[in-house]
């Protein structure tokens, strides 16, 4: 599959030679990754390896010091989250980034509210849309009029996922989407990823869990100390190969030579 993608298909996203530093620390150091339609690319690495930082550059939360981002073959300038959203890049943050005092619908549409012809926020229409998408994603979800602070971890996660999915994302970034979830909910997220993949959406999946990556991803890019160790086809490597990349920072192919 990876072979097919590399021949002639334009990648959804190409991040080329990205660098960013914070106070002299090279958080991301000349890293290049790419993502094709219908593909899941895992981003692996220890805490502080730079994977979340790299992805925040794509989602507009940070701006790279140098390097280029190409989206669907065109050079893109992403200076804030609005730019990313306009490019159909949606992000599910590890922290979920929900305003706890607002209800599910307000969070789902935050920054993109539905408005009446008078320009006023149309809460009822937003709630109706939220009910529709929740019926698909998490049929057990019932707390539409409570602030999200009153929801369980899984319910909050489904609000964050619904927000990313609702707006027809073509590029989806998931930062540890299953970290706070129980086994049943984790299974739901896995199914969702399969489903989105089948629709041709490209997904960057940040994870600590090698098993998750082996199961869900097509390729995996491993980072260590801000640098890219390498990108591999998941089918070509074993768990141990990936572990070696994460811990020792050495590529399996190189080791074999």
């Amino acid at each position, binding site marked *: 599959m990876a072979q097919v993608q590399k021949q002639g298909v334009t990648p959804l996203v190409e991040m080329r030679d990205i660098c960013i530093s914070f106070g002299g620390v090279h958080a991301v150091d000349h890293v290049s990754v790419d993502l094709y339609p219908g593909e899941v690319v895992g981003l692996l690495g220890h805490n502080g390896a730079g994977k979340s930082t790299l992805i925040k550059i794509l989602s507009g939360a940070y701006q790279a010091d140098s390097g280029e981002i190409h989206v669907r073959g065109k050079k893109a300038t992403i200076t*804030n989250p*609005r730019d990313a959203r306009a490019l159909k890049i949606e992000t599910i943050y590890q*922290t979920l980034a929900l305003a706890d005092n607002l209800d599910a619908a307000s969070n789902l549409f935050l920054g993109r509210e539905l408005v009446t012809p008078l320009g*006023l926020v149309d809460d009822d229409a937003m709630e109706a849309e939220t009910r529709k998408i929740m019926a698909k994603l998490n049929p057990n979800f019932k707390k539409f009029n409570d602030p999200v602070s009153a929801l369980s971890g899984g319910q909050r996660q489904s609000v964050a996922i619904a927000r990313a999915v609702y707006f027809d994302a073509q590029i989806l970034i998931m930062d540890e989407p299953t970290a706070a979830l129980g086994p049943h909910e984790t299974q739901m997220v896995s199914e969702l990823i399969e489903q989105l993949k089948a629709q041709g959406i490209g997904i960057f999946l940040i994870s600590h869990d090698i098993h998750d990556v082996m199961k869900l991803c097509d390729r995996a890019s491993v980072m260590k100390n801000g640098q890219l160790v390498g990108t591999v086809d998941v089918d070509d490597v074993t768990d141990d190969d990936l572990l070696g990349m994460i811990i020792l920072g050495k590529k399996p192919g190189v080791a074999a030579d």
Partner: protein
Amino acid sequence: MAQTDTNSGRAPARKNIFHTLEIDLRLLGMIGAFIAVCLVFNVLTDGRFLTPRNIFNLTIQTVSVAIMATGMVFIIVTRHIDLSVGALLATCSAVMAMTQTEWLPNALGLEFGHPLIPWIAIGVGLLSGLVIGAFHGYLVGYLAIPAFIVTLGGLLVWRNVAWYITSGKTIGPLDETFQKFGGINGTLGATGSWIVGGLALLGALYGLYAARRNKVKHGFPVKPVWAEFLLATIIGAAILGFVAILNAYEVPTRVLQRTFERAGLEMPEGYTQSYGIPISVLLLIFLAIAMTIVARRTRFGRYVFATGGNPDAAELSGINTRWLTVKIFALMGALCALSAVVASARLTNHSNDIGTLDELRVIAAAVIGGTALAGGIGTIHGAILGALIMQSLQSGMAMVGVDAPLQNIVVGSVLVLAVLIDIVYRKRTGGA
């Protein structure tokens, strides 16, 4: 204040009916506290507290602080504070007083009393408040200086800018039209008040109907019809009762006599005239409605609350929180100016100490009204009710003859107690 406690303690048992009516329990607690305060003072003053005259005075005394409290809600909801509102009020008041008595007559040659003068003065005042507020917002939002520091500095700066502009003199009397915004000098009279009351009633009924229709359209659960009718009756009774009380306050006969004499007419036997709704109160009501719509139904309001709930989430959702901060402080500044119109018009002049300690009253009103200093939570009607409770306590104690220092001790203690009750309430109900 013990009454508040029993109220919130009793509330869960009755939860069902209030749940059916979809009435906010906290609002109910505040109304309960307010009624309790009124009743206690009414007993202590042998019925002088709840007379039309005193209720009229209470409402016009509350307006100035209440106007600013509505803006303070947005400030506190976004986790900021504004300590400069009283000083900013003074600067705006000074600017408006000087505009109408000195600058316009001297520079533009508009005679004092020219019909354009009050409107130009108000415009200049609002613009000054807006610009100064926006400047505070810029310092807080873009330069990341804590709002506490910016507005603490502002407190000193603007209090003394006002002093400097007026050389510390009392400026007055102010323009007669301008004075109409103060309270007793500008009221709607009986007929006008009934018309406003009727329109308000129609508006409220339509609001209830429209909300229900919208819910039905989307297939959401709605209240039973009897609940809607009960709610409509309560609202209607409150509106018309309020108008009736204000209309029951009649202009004293000697004042009427003087008015007739000045017009060169003889006053007919048995002639009476009601004050009715003061223009300043009408202004506050319109403002309250407008600010509630802004808070609940505009993107700006939604972003204010989202930013207060989780600034990072707001930022990641593409909300420009820095620009939002500028807008919030600019709004606060404009409201200080509006408040300055009412306050100086009520006094019929600008005095050097106008608005002193108002920052504390305004913050207290917002906080007593349920605005959480941790951010994200607060309502406009709560803040206005908070201002009303504070004013009732203050004037009630003055009427009973409580010494001035004791009055302030009580008001200060009530503020702390109200926050404590709020914290306990929030813990029990688990959040907002």
